[in-house]
């Protein structure tokens, strides 16, 4: 865990975060963030930032976005009461159902928002990276919907473990390019997408899938994902009778989590928990729990926390969930951890799979393996906080994980 800063400074930084000061003019959340990219991309990022500031609050863009979110994505997504889990865990469990969003995860919120922006910025084509395939599918869907050609980079290892999503992308007309360099997972896919973008920074829009990367991506993705938390906040008050005691979400790059957390940051009584992939254990290379076990550094455009060795070489990570299997994390999470506003913890592969099965059998909802990490952590929390009112971000559905689940939970049962 990165060292915390002193309480007075932390309080001041939190106040600024709540005021909306971050990212600052340099694209930073406290010390984290920034823009560490080849010079070729600087003008593209400048254009993106200007376009974003021009359009994001524009009534016309907002109307287009709202229409797509409401009539195509299926927003608002419901807030479900987990009746059986509440009884089993002795707490009051609520689930924000991003699994019901079109294409099966929160990723579509950002994909359609960015695709609408790409169109307004005059992009001729889109590139995207994907880990679990969810962002690739979301990008393929959003781009098909808007008539933009899209190329999706996906690590060869992920292509293997998330095979169904590859076919889905292709059926929606996307070009899927397997990445065989580097670790052949999400990190290598981001590298390849960046290489593609560097080759045509004017005509290409890079549709980044998480709250990572150079400024303004962490901000842009947060703004597009914050609808999760905004809806959930209102729904909790209407359905659960008040704000939650604690909010949980899984953290890979951190997009679903920041989308859920950000609207609760000002609610100081609401505990916030980000859950990373504990993989096989705490050893370097055995997990993808960047905030829990990482140290500061620069990867793929931003200064944040990283899993790297003493030479600054990025570590290969391990997680049973492709979507969390990433050695970096969005800079705003590094910041929220440093000021202590959000607590970050980790859940290992086995415990996540157990939680996946428990949720499936108890509530009839098969979550993504990524999502299951948040449930496992909430279960632990409930054990020590009986009666707590817990909101969990159900970031996606598990259909995409059937190949992995067939090899693990379902082994010998099919």
């Amino acid at each position, binding site marked *: 865990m990165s060292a915390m800063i002193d309480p007075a400074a932390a309080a001041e930084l939190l106040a600024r975060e709540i005021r909306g000061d971050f990212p600052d003019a340099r694209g930073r959340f406290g010390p984290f963030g920034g823009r560490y990219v080849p010079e070729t991309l600087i003008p593209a990022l400048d254009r993106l930032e200007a376009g974003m500031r021009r359009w994001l609050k524009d009534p016309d863009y907002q109307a287009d976005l709202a229409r797509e979110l409401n009539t195509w994505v299926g927003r608002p997504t419901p807030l479900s009461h987990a009746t059986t889990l509440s009884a089993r865990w002795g707490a009051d469990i609520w689930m924000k159902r991003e699994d019901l969003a079109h294409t099966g995860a929160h990723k579509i919120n950002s994909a359609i928002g960015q695709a609408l922006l790409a169109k307004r910025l005059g992009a001729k084509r889109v590139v995207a990276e994907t880990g679990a395939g969810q962002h690739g599918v979301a990008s393929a869907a959003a781009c098909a919907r808007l008539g933009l050609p899209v190329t999706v980079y996906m690590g060869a290892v992920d292509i293997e473990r998330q095979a169904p999503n590859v076919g889905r992308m292709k059926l929606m007309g996307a070009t899927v390019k397997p990445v065989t*360099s580097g670790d052949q997972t999400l990190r290598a896919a981001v590298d390849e997408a960046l290489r593609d973008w560097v*080759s045509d920074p004017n005509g290409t829009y890079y549709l980044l899938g998480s709250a990572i990367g150079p400024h303004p991506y962490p901000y842009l993705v947060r703004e597009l994902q914050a609808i999760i938390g905004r809806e959930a906040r209102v729904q909790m008050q209407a359905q659960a009778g008040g704000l939650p005691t604690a909010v949980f979400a899984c953290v890979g790059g951190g997009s679903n989590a920041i989308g859920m957390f950000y609207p609760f940051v000002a609610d100081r009584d609401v505990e916030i928990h980000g859950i990373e992939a504990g993989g096989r254990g705490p050893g370097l290379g055995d997990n993808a729990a960047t905030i829990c076990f990482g140290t500061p550094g*620069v990867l793929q455009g931003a200064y944040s926390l990283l899993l790297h060795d003493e*030479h600054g070489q990025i570590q290969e990570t391990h997680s049973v969930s492709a979507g969390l299997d990433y050695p970096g994390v969005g800079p705003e999470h590094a910041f929220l951890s440093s000021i202590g506003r959000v607590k970050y913890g980790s859940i290992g592969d086995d415990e996540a799979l157990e939680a996946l099965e428990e949720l499936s059998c108890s509530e009839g909802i098969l979550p993504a393996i990524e999502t299951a990490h948040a449930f496992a952590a909430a279960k632990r929390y409930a054990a020590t906080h009986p009666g707590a009112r817990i909101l969990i971000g159900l970031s996606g559905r598990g259909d995409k994980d059937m190949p992995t689940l067939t090899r693990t939970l379902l082994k010998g049962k099919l």
Partner: protein
Amino acid sequence: MSKSLNIAEAIAAAKSAGRPAIVAFMTAGFPRRATFLETLTRIGSAADVIEIGVPFTDPMADGMTIQRASEAALKDGVTLAWILDELRGAAARPAAPLLLMSYLNPLLRFGFDRLPAAARAAGVSGFIVPDLPNEEGDEFATALKAEGLALVQMVTPVTPRERLEALCRHADGFVYAVTMTGITGRSVDVPDEVLSYLDAVRAASGAPVCAGFGIRNRGQVERLAPHVDGVIVGSALVEVLERGEDPAAFLRELHL
């Protein structure tokens, strides 16, 4: 003397000889760690400036050739600390000024506090950091300057005019003028607009201008010569090393 001045001098020397300077890129410890210094010496015999690539796991601006070399070197255990140790301890170093080309994270991890002095002690004249744009570079540039080392600035064909002028104004060592958008390793046939872009860079820059990305043959160097002070040869040279051919012979071919 400031090490960064070495660089401009080396380029000027080539110019006096009536040819563009040859800036040669090699990945440290490639093709083999054991022959690092030997390879360096052979390249040094035919290059005016040498860029030594520090291998990194995520070389996002590099094409397949340099990715491969980088990966091989990492597997061989090449690290920044090892490179600096080797250079410092070398019985002889080439006369050509040495630049370290590295992505930011290995430098950060080494520590901006220790790195400039260690680099200077190793005979290094400066750094090229592809993922450190000017906006983020102040801290490192300042630390380097304290030891008289250069932080070479890159500019590209898509850099807007005003920005280009600002970047060139602060250039140190030389201006690295990227000849195309894209990653290293792809060949370019140098269209006319690249030449006028290079002219603009030269007009804006007090420092010498070297063109890089995609330089592979004498024809390209001939076409570029009137517009630049030097050319940077990267992937093509790494491929020569990969094939086990003589790097010096290849580089000499590029001396006009």
